């Protein structure tokens, strides 16, 4: 296992864009949480607040044609992959114009137009699906790669082993990314994990692993780019462990009372957005430059909220469409 902490020379323009992207994700989720409190978002939301550097650093290195599989905590990944926030917001509100027509909600966002093949409500289920997508890429001899993101809790599910073994056996073009935020819902993941952790497990399955500070967007960006280039060049599957911290509760409704505020306050000091801004300002750039970029994003999200709020409900027929083709009787025996 490689532990990577160094970064290449800072590209300030890129860093500013990354800063803005992180702000954009943060704004999206904060808006969704507020909407949730207003009663406008009925289903559960799993915020990735504090983990945005991974989304930006990893998914920013994927081509549109590349494939992404994510989890219940996937807003950030999805946005960076290219999905449009207003469609995502409509989805969270269950409205017309939703990216999945309002049928999926936060946990089932997908956008096949930009290679986003789905968030998932079942922990770890995306891993074997991702392996299969990569398998198809190999069969079709295309130049795409797959990126599969999951949490540290997912490494205790069987499909983690089955999917990684599969990727190794068939030598597939896939980057596995473990967002190691220390928690699986209300449980500290370490207490329920035997052995040295995600990287050791990946390596035992024949997949080279790299462990990084997932809250340093420049490091994530550098390492992800290098891994992705290697995979695209035919180097086979790779595994990235990005250490981070979930600054909010497991869901928008979780006060996270199972950890003390001193711990959380300390962790806020390592907020990747703050750290990124510090890096930018250290180069001597005035802070209105990054703020200007960020504000454009905030405006986009504000508008997404307005659109979603005012959008009509879906046609009720959507409750029965898109089930399957060959159905003599889609609406069942009695309705």
């Amino acid at each position, binding site marked *: 296992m490689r532990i990577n902490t160094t970064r290449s020379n800072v590209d300030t323009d890129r860093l500013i864009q990354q800063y803005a992207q992180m702000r954009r994700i943060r704004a999206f989720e904060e808006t969704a949480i507020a909407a949730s409190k207003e009663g406008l978002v009925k289903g559960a939301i799993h915020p990735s607040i504090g983990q945005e550097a991974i989304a930006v650093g990893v998914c920013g290195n994927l081509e549109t044609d590349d494939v992404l599989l994510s989890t219940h905590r996937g807003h950030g990944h999805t946005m960076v992959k290219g999905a449009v926030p207003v469609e995502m917001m409509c989805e969270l509100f269950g409205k017309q114009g939703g990216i999945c027509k309002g*049928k999926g909600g936060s946990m089932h966002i997908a956008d096949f137009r930009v290679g986003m093949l789905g968030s998932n409500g*079942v922990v770890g289920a995306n891993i074997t699906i991702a392996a299969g997508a990569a398998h198809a890429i190999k069969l079709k001899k295309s130049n795409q790669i797959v990126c599969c993101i999951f949490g540290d809790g997912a490494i205790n599910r069987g499909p983690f082993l089955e999917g990684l073994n599969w990727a190794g056996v068939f030598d597939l073009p896939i980057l596995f990314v473990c967002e190691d935020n220390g928690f699986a819902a209300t449980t500290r993941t370490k207490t329920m994990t035997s052995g040295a952790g995600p990287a050791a497990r990946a390596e035992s399955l024949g997949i080279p692993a790299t462990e990084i500070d997932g809250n340093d967007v420049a490091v994530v960006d550098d390492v992800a780019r290098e891994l992705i280039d290697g995979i695209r060049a035919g180097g086979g599957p790779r595994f990235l462990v990005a250490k981070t911290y979930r600054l909010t509760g497991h869901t928008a409704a979780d006060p996270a009372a199972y950890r003390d505020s001193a711990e959380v306050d300390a962790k806020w000091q390592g907020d990747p957005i703050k750290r990124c801004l510090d890096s930018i300002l250290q180069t001597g750039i005035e802070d209105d430059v990054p703020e200007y970029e960020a504000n454009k994003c905030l405006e986009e999200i504000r508008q997404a909220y307005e659109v979603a709020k005012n959008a009509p409900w879906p046609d009720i027929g959507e409750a029965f469409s898109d089930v399957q083709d060959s159905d003599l009787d889609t609406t069942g025996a*009695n309705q």
Partner: protein
Amino acid sequence: MSQMTYLEAGKRALAEEMRRDEMVWAIGEDLGRGGVFGQYIGLADEFGRERISDAPISEAAIMGGAVGAAMMGTRPVVEMRFSDFALCAIDELVNQAAKARFMFGGQKKVPLVVREPIGMWRSSAAQHSQSLESWYTHIPGLVVVAPSTPEDTYGLFKTSIRNDDPVVFMEHKNLWGLTGNVSDEEDFTIPLGKARIAREGSDITIVSWSATVHVAVEAADTLASEGTSVEVIDLRTLWPWDKEAVFASVEKTGRLLVAHEAVSVSGFGAEIVASVAEEMFSSLKGPIKRLGAPRSPVSYSPPLEDQVRVTANNIAAAVRAMG
């Protein structure tokens, strides 16, 4: 009698059974902090973290482990969080737990309870809303329980824990907050396979279970005001199910509607309707009916989710259409 919620009734039942029998213990994700719905809050304090145990996100190991632990003489209560996640542990439940006693020639029974919260609840969408009770009724070796009230949860959970075979215990997520009277007797239990008459009536029988019972009773109230007397039977246990009670009611009314939240096609309503058609044909005054969800996954969007819901209105309409 004390007033308590459906959730509290389940917790009280578990606590009492854990006090009564050291071999009873519970395991599942996040239980140490009360479980995802708070059904275990406070139990770790009384019983310790070994008996109210956290688990890794390993549904297959939770269920498979319960089989081994049950074979060794303990009585595990395993928490699946949402019944949908039990689909990650079906081999363990169906090929192992349900068959071990038979396959090994009766050498050992496998006493375990799998808690599988079911049903639609707060826009939880397709992977967190299913009601697959009919699957388990199809599997020899499994007991299937789906209580609708705090008292039934209390009494049936206790019975399930004391039962020597694997029980799939399906609480409805939308009922957690439902309040009702519960017996103060510590030895209060409810036998498996005994239905409850939720409302007496004489013109038509509605058979239901879990959350839909309340909807059926509401429909019955409406219909009563229109002059139709509806008998609502809460099945409570789906396997074994109380044929006797259902048949007696249909004998009296000559009409049957089965209403449930699950998909209608191959739902447990089919089993009941088929049984009545086979065995009570000559007592029937007209066609017997099912009302369930269309064969469509559950949507996220609230108005779409509502489309697949069995409501008091459509139960009443179905009854009216049956003449």
